[in-house]
């Protein structure tokens, strides 16, 4: 609360009204997608586009159940499992990347090695490679090591994808801290572990939350590697979502929208909960090379 006064002025409800209009215009495509989730196919493709219609929950039912071809009875899809997989895989890998990345970032910030910046840059370059190129080697590697189709395989891979971003962001937070406080604590006999956990981490919690949210957003919807490296048991929602894109009909807009809407809920709430941290004011350091 004390930080509130750092913001550039305060505004009242009038300002809320203006920003809401702008916000809603920006949100409109998402709103339309959510609306589509409640439409039949003919409503979704109506001309002119329909804002008012009789809503149906059929699309949401179809996310979890579908009719058998031969008997017409309703069969459960594995969508529930896929939702769990997505949450588990993304959550674990982003968390892991944050832990590992924070340790590395602390080292880069406090114990610079010779050629520190070069190492940092190399870490960043792994994010620049078009992923399509490493697919065949990774696919082969996964098969040889037995990681294909397992949770650990895809979690480790996503962790690797998130490390560059985590290291770079978290390092910039550490750089901003005042090392004199840490030195003073050391003078008082605090161990390195205590300095790290008691002095450094609490000060950058907001930044860590921001990094977690960014990582989650970048991982949540990953498609290509999930398609190739997950098995039937470990499949994630983005892969399963592809079944709505064509087969007997073109895109099943209602079903796709229903999955998108459901899939939006977890990440929306995580972001909403961590939003306070994001807005408390995160100062990032200068990027140097």
């Amino acid at each position: 609360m004390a930080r509130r006064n750092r913001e550039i002025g305060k505004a009242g409800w009038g300002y809320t009204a203006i920003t809401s209009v702008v916000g809603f215009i920006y949100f409109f495509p998402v709103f339309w997608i959510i609306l589509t989730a409640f439409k039949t196919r003919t409503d979704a493709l109506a001309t002119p586009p329909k804002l008012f219609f009789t809503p149906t929950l059929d699309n949401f039912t179809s996310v979890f159940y579908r009719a058998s071809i031969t008997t017409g009875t309703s069969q459960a899809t594995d969508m529930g499992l896929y939702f769990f997989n997505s949450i588990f895989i993304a959550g674990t890998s982003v968390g892991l990347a944050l832990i590992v990345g924070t340790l590395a970032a602390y080292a880069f910030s406090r114990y610079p090695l010779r050629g520190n910046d070069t190492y940092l840059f190399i870490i960043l370059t792994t994010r620049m490679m078009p992923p399509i190129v490493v697919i065949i080697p990774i696919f082969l590697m996964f098969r040889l090591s037995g990681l294909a189709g397992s949770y650990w395989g895809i979690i480790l891979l996503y962790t690797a994808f998130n490390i560059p971003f985590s290291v770079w962001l978290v390092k910039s937070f550490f750089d901003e801290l005042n090392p004199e406080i840490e030195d003073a604590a050391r003078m008082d006999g605090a161990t390195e572990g205590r300095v790290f956990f008691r002095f450094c981490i609490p000060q950058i919690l907001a930044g860590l939350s921001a990094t977690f949210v960014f990582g989650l957003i970048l991982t949540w919807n990953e498609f290509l590697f999930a398609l190739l490296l997950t098995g039937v048991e470990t499949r994630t929602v983005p892969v399963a979502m592809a079944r709505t894109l064509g087969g007997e009909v073109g895109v099943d807009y209602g079903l796709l929208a229903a999955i998108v809407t459901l899939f939006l809920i977890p990440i929306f709430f995580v972001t909403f909960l961590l939003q306070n941290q994001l807005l408390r004011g995160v100062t990032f350091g200068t990027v140097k090379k």
Partner: protein
Amino acid sequence: MKSRNVLRGLMGATVLAASFGSAPAFSADITITMAAPDWPPTRFMKEHFDATYTSPAGHNTTLDMDFIPWPSFYERVAASLTSGEQKYQMIVTDSQWLGAFVEGGYYLNLTDRINADPELTAIMQDLHPALVSAYSTYPHRTRAQLEEAGVVPAPGVNYYGFPQFPDTYVTYYRQDIFCHEGEMAAFQEKYGTNLPCTYEDWQDTDWEKFAQIGEFLQRKKGDMLAGEVLDDDFYGIAYQAGKGYDFSSMQINAFIWQQGGDIWDESKAPDAQAEGVVNSDIAVKAFDQYLSMIQYMPPVARTGQMDIFVEQDLYMQGKVGAMIDWVGLGEPVLDPTASKVHDKSAFGPAPGSRQADGSIDRTGNIGGQPFVLTTWNSDEVVDEALNVVKWWLKSDTQLEAVKNGGQSGLKSVMAMPEYNDLRPWNRAHVEMIDWQKDVWHIPEFFEMLTQQQEEFDKAITGQIGAKEALDAIAEFQQELLEDGDYIK
């Protein structure tokens, strides 16, 4: 998974054999993992297998279908095969991928097994030769070449696949419009010929009339159509004109073949040329005719985005009078929850080019998918997989498949009296299947297709003309094929 199960089954059998002192037939647990696109024809196969299959060899067989969403099916299969994962025992495949994956050593050559097995031989004899040519042979042999041999299987030909879902394109049309008396009379008056209403009328419909239909039925919002005021613009006709995958080549090839032109003919390698054939005057004229009808189609056609699904949607939402599309996309058109025209649709053969003798040539490019076996399996698994093939291509199974929205490639099944009534497009499908040819199967297929689709797309979006597009395609193919020693 599979090998462990086989081993366990074998061990169990050995113990049994030892204890009884005699050797009964080996009964094993066999799991056949099949890569399959996630759609009704394959889901039917799985459900029906679980309900009806018993192994003639006495095995305990599981068909484990790995359902992969259609849009990412190719990527998943290609990655699995090329990485050497060896996960699948059977694979549903597009016929055009045969070359790449046969040359890669992934698809099993079944020629010897077919020759040695009278049951399989009989199946191959009963399959429609157009399907055998397109779905099974590599190096590719045309239907004419196969029929010339006089025997099935033809000597010197390599066989790989069997039909999972044989597909052709047919005309979907709005009976309420085409059989509307006022519209029929107006059409008759304007063009001096009839607006096709019955199946027989469509049998006599050529591209010229199809274009007239396009012009005639193109109406603006507020105009009258079949006695009602339109609440939106309406378009007469649609066929595929999309940049993606093969969503224009399949239709353009038909125009070219029907008028006596040709694509590069791989069955005549190394003598067949691309330059001078692909861009022959006939081909240019045929492609021009294809392009001339774009103006009568919904405006999305001008973006080069009217793929097989977009035209299906436009038709289902009542924006188009008649469209040419795959039979495999037919079921949703009859579904009241998805389609506004579910009770107004009828089906006929796709139009063709009028020949000098007055007959109509409807040569078309075949669709659908065969399924194949892979190379890394034990004899036991291959034998059992072939038992699954035989089960699938039994007339009972095939008839059941057709009832559930599938199609059959067996001549005996298509000749059954009840066949035409099972689905409303079956008559048209049977008529069309006789006209089918296929595009190339060589491993370079995708490179040729992508470049061709790109040039076609430029012409469809009006950036270049037909001649320019075909010249560019011919030049590219000639060079590529000479480099690959396909043209000498």
